[in-house]
């Protein structure tokens, strides 16, 4: 699999797929998509990068350990559950923050942050499994 063509294409492919994964994550609130499927797309991107450049290359490119990504996602997801505590509402009640920025209507909500948390958990957890499987392949 380590051909020149593949090694040249892999970084672009990875970048495009990661971008697409974020697109899928963000459109997930009202249309098909969401954190889980977006996360899986991102993991496939890293897996492709791993096939081309090896597991060590992926770990270098990610900077942080995949499990730390998963943990920060969990942290974000739990944090997004909490705001309704201060408003006297049950857990996970969605809260919205709407404002205009440079003439664009922006609606931020706790479900979105929860979904980002899910995305990070999936990216972290499945990447670490995929990397450990790829590592075993090579030895």
């Amino acid at each position, binding site marked *: 699999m380590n051909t020149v063509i593949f090694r040249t294409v892999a970084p672009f492919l990875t970048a495009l797929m990661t971008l697409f994964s974020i697109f899928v994550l963000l459109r997930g609130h009202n249309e098909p998509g969401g954190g889980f499927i977006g996360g899986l797309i991102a993991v496939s991107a890293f897996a492709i990068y791993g096939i081309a450049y090896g597991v060590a290359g992926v770990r270098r490119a990610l900077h942080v350990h995949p499990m730390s990504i*998963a*943990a920060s996602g969990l942290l974000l997801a739990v944090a997004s559950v909490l705001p309704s505590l201060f408003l006297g509402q049950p857990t996970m*009640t969605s809260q919205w923050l709407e404002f205009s920025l440079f003439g664009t209507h922006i609606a931020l909500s706790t479900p979105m942050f929860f979904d980002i948390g899910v995305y990070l958990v999936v990216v972290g957890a499945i990447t670490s499994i995929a990397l450990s499987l790829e590592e075993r392949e090579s030895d």
Partner: protein
Amino acid sequence: MSLEKTSVDIAAAMITDPTAAKDWLLVTPTLLTMLGGAIALITRKNVRLQPWIGITALALVFCANIALLNHVLNDGVVTMVMGSWLPPFGIAFTADPMGAMFATFASLVALCTGIYAAGSIRPEERRYGFYPFLLMLLCGVSGAFLTGDIFNLYVWFEVLLISSFGLLVLGNKKRQIDGAVKYSLLNLLGTTLFLLATALLYGLVGTLNMADIAMKAAHLENQGPLMGVALLFFLAFAMKAAAFPVNFWLPASYHTPRIVVSAVFAGLLTKVGVYALLRVLLLLLPAGHNWMNTLITLVAILTMLTGVMGALAQTDVRRTIGYLVITGIGSMLAGLAVASEWAVTGAIMYAVHSMIAMTGMFFVFGYIGKLQGTFSLREMGGMYRRSPILAAVSLVLLFAAAGLPPFSGFWPKVLLVEGALDKGMGWLAGVVLLTSILSIICVGRLWIYVFLRGGSQSIADGTMVALPQEKQKLPATVWLSVFPIVLMVVYIGLQPDAVMSFAHKGALTLLDPSAYVESVFGVAP
């Protein structure tokens, strides 16, 4: 889109009344464990910090559970529905006295495990993530005890299952991988059967909310399919609880992992299965329970007997304790089989007793095994001279496990025997007593061989070895983890009123679901 702009009536779909902050106590155990687990996972390279983060989080969860227990005691069954959706559409968290009490004792056990692990888990195993896994395990267990939605219960089962896999292979020895293969395959099979039963139940009643199921299942015209579903639930949860014909994964795996892991498994995992059995067969499908009564009785008797006979036949102390766990499961099932008010109280109390006593036994014998370098009953010995205090402590725990007064195992057995006699099931009472007698033989032999028989000891191949004689000072982590448990065992033995009245409330809520349903829907059924 924000809700204010809608033209439909929000109150028809969502809760608009303000929620009291103390109702948040319902989700605090799960949220806190998740937070703690995430923080511990991020900082897992910092090996010295790990126990502090883990123990702090566990202590906070324990305090939250105490507060929740107090809340339930004062205000009755408490419900909170996720995302403000009206039940049965939102996922409900419902704490009844049984669930709250189980969650409290589970967090006590996990806290003691966290303390014990601080002294026994090696740095590289901390880096591998012992504390995050322990916290996630407790997250799954507390979620299972507090949820009021049957599919959500399945999700919490999976959370605790995947964390238990992580804990089981911690250390990565051959033995552990062997045990993990059997444990994980059979447990996954059990949870899949649970999912299967849930799917069929959903097809029948069209709801997943437990209170809603309890109402709808009772009024279903054709009860036949419900019986099949109840049977499937029984099989699935009996597998999780290690009841007789499906118990073989437990003795095959519980002695393989690190001793702290065995301890927390023995304390928590099988009890989750028992909890689910009580919840589903008594609260949700009482008709199914009546129909299967003979079967449950038979399973209870065989579980008690195989457990205690297995315990008598084991050389490895850890496997002996594993079989004692199974015996306890049999006793709890006996309470389920009788299903009278006081018998269920006995089963709930027995589960609480079994949580703390079994964990304590693994702590004590794990420490002894580490000192002596072996877990074989033929090679251990002379511990009385090395640590009289340890001898006293383990005698308390062993007597409690055998059901002798004045320790925690005594009262539940009294209730079970009484309940069985009241219902005219004298032979079931007889088997409970017979099991106790056999357990006394088993624990008596265990204690005599490990503590009293001292000096040189002949091992399997006939050679004699001299056992060390010097006094052993207990490390602080062992003190701090074993003594709360022993104190609790003695306290329940001497002052059973508090726990018993609480378990009784739990039993009443199970047998008459109206309080449970009222808490979820706001009106009596």
